[in-house]
C-alpha cells in the first residue's frame, strides 16, 4: 500500500490551497485525488469574472483563478491523480479510490483533508405534484452545458430560486440569446450576492419576484409553461395570485449543500445547520487527523475565503503530521451562535492550539440593518461592531487573538450574537 503524509480529497480551490500550505510547512508527501478530468473544481464552469480580488488584487474569471493555483501546485511538484474517485475513508485513514488505470486501490494517509466541495439541492426542492417533463435543469447543470459543452438548454426560461448560480445563469442565457422571463424566489430576500442581482438581473431588466414559487408545470414531454404564485408568511401559495409564463426551460437554483457522503461514512460528526463537519480551530473534524475546508465544510460565496480557509486546514494538517499531538485534556472553548447567527465555523477553539489570530466565520438567518455583531467570551463583550447590512446570502467573519482567549477557564462559551445596540 502506498503511503502519503497528507491525502487531499478533491482538487478544487480548497484542495489546491490546502496542498500548497501543507507543502509550505515542509510536508513533501502530499497527494491530491480528483474525480474530474482536470483540477480546479467548480471554478472551471464559472466563466464569469469576480474571483480573486482579495487574493490577487485583480478581478479574474473562475478558470483563471483556478489556473493560478494549478500552476503553483505544478511548480511545487505536488502529486495529483485525476479521474480518480475516492470511495471510502476509514477511521484509520486508509483511503480507498478508483480509476481506470489502477482499478480499486488503497492509500494510507498520515492526515486527510476533506475538500469535496458541494452539490446543488436536488429537484426534491421542487415540491409540486405532476409530471417531470424534459427541460427542467438545475442551474449548475445548465452552467456546465452552456460553458463547457457549448450548448444552450433552452430559449425561454423561468428560474426558480435566486441563488448565485441561478442569477449568473439568467445573465449567461440572456447573452446567448435566450429570453429569461422571471426569477422567482420563495423567501422574502435573495440568497444570492447583491452584486449578482445588480449585474445579472437589473442590467438586463429581468424581474426578481421575491416570496414567489412555482405551483404548476405544464407540458408532458417538454416543459411548455409554468405557473408561479405569491406565497404568504407561511411560505404557502396565496390563491388568486397565480401568473402564467410560457417557457421551454425551468432552471432550479435552490441552494447548495456540502457533499459529505464520504465524511458521514467515515463517522465524522456533521452539523445539522451547515451539513458540513463540526470542526475546531484547526478545522479538524471529530476524527483526529481529518480536516475539512471549502464548500464541504460550509458553503462559501467567495473563493478567496475558500483559499484562505483551506490554507489554514493544510497548515494544521501539516502540524498534525509533524507532531502527532496526543489527545491530552486541553482547555476547549465552545463557540456558538445565537440571536440570528445560524452557525459558526469553528464550533470550538483550543487557545493552546490556535494561531496568533483566529477567524470565526458565520452566517445570519435574516436580513439585518444597522445592527451590531458582538462576541461574548463568558460574560464579557469582547467585540462589538456595527454592520450596516447583514444578509443570509453573505458570510460574515470576526477575528479573535490568542491573547484575548488566553487564561479562559475550561468550557467558557464564546457567543456570537446580533444586537441592536
Amino acid at each position, binding site marked *: 500500500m502506498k503511503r502519503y503524509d497528507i491525502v487531499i480529497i478533491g482538487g478544487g480551490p480548497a484542495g489546491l490551497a490546502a496542498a500548497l500550505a501543507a507543502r509550505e510547512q515542509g510536508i513533501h508527501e502530499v497527494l491530491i485525488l480528483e474525480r474530474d478530468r482536470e483540477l480546479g473544481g467548480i471554478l472551471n464552469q464559472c466563466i464569469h469574472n*469576480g474571483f480573486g*480580488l482579495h487574493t490577487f488584487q485583480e478581478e479574474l474569471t473562475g478558470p*483563471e483563478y483556478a489556473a493560478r493555483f494549478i500552476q503553483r501546485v505544478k511548480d511545487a511538484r505536488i502529486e495529483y491523480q485525476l479521474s480518480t474517485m475516492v470511495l471510502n475513508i476509514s477511521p484509520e485513514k486508509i483511503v480507498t479510490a478508483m480509476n481506470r488505470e489502477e482499478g480499486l486501490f488503497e492509500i494510507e494517509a498520515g492526515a486527510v483533508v476533506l475538500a469535496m466541495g458541494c452539490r446543488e439541492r436536488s429537484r426534491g426542492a421542487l415540491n409540486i405534484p405532476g409530471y417531470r417533463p424534459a427541460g427542467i435543469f438545475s442551474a449548475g447543470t445548465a452552467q456546465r452545458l452552456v460553458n*463547457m459543452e457549448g450548448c444552450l438548454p433552452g430559449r425561454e426560461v423561468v428560474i426558480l430560486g435566486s441563488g448565485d448560480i441561478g442569477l449568473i445563469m439568467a445573465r449567461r442565457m440572456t*447573452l446567448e440569446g435566450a429570453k429569461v422571463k422571471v426569477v422567482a424566489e420563495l423567501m422574502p430576500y435573495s440568497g444570492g450576492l447583491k*452584486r449578482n442581482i445588480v*449585474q445579472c438581473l437589473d442590467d438586463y431588466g429581468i424581474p426578481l419576484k421575491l416570496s414567489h414559487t412555482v405551483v404548476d408545470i405544464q407540458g408532458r414531454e417538454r416543459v411548455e409553461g409554468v405557473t408561479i404564485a405569491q406565497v404568504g408568511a407561511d411560505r404557502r401559495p396565496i390563491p388568486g395570485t397565480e401568473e402564467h409564463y410560457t417557457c421551454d426551460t425551468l432552471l432550479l437554483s435552490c441552494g447548495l449543500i456540502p457533499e459529505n457522503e464520504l465524511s458521514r461514512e467515515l463517522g465524522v460528526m456533521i452539523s445539522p445547520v451547515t451539513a458540513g463537519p463540526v470542526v475546531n480551530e484547526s478545522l479538524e473534524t471529530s476524527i483526529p487527523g481529518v480536516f475539512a475546508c471549502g464548500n464541504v465544510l460550509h458553503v462559501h460565496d467567495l473563493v478567496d475565503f475558500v483559499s484562505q480557509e483551506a490554507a489554514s486546514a493544510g497548515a494544521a494538517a501539516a502540524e498534525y503530521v509533524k507532531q502527532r499531538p496526543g489527545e491530552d485534556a486541553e482547555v476547549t472553548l465552545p463557540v456558538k451562535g445565537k440571536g440570528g447567527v445560524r452557525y459558526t465555523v469553528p464550533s470550538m477553539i483550543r487557545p493552546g492550539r490556535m494561531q496568533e489570530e483566529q477567524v470565526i466565520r458565520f452566517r445570519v438567518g435574516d436580513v439585518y440593518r444597522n445592527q451590531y455583531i458582538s462576541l461574548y467570551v463568558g460574560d464579557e463583550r469582547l467585540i462589538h461592531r456595527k454592520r450596516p447590512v447583514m444578509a443570509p446570502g453573505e458570510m460574515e467573519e470576526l477575528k479573535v487573538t490568542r491573547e484575548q482567549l488566553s487564561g479562559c477557564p475550561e468550557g467558557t462559551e464564546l457567543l456570537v450574537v446580533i444586537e441592536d445596540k
Partner: protein
Amino acid sequence: MDTRELICIGCPMGCRMTVNMDKGQVHSVSGNTCKRGDAYARKEVTNPTRIVTSTVRVEGGVLPVVSVKTREDIPKGKIFACMEALAKVTVQAPVAIGDVVLPDAAGTGVDVVATKNVVEA
C-alpha cells in the same frame, strides 16, 4: 445636490454606496470599502461599463469551447454587439490564457481574450 444609491459590483462584497451629485458632477462617494468602489461609482453614474464573459468554439481541442472575456470593461450598450461578434468566432487548439480570440470587439477598442488553457485533443 442629488444623491444616487448604488451597489458596487467591483467585487462580490457588494458595498452599498451613496453618490452625491452636484450639477451633473460627482461631488462625493461614500459607503465603499476600497478605492475601486469610488472609481466604479464615478463611472457608473456617467459612463456605465461591464466586463463581458462568454465562450467561443474550439476546433481540435480537448474541450468543444473555451471561456473568454473582454480584457477590459466595455460600454454597457455594446454588450450584445460584442456577443454577436463572438458567436462568429472559432479558434484552433491549442489555446492559452490571454490569447486574443477577437481583436477590437464591436469597435470598442477592447480585445476579447481566452481565460482557459485548452490543449490539443
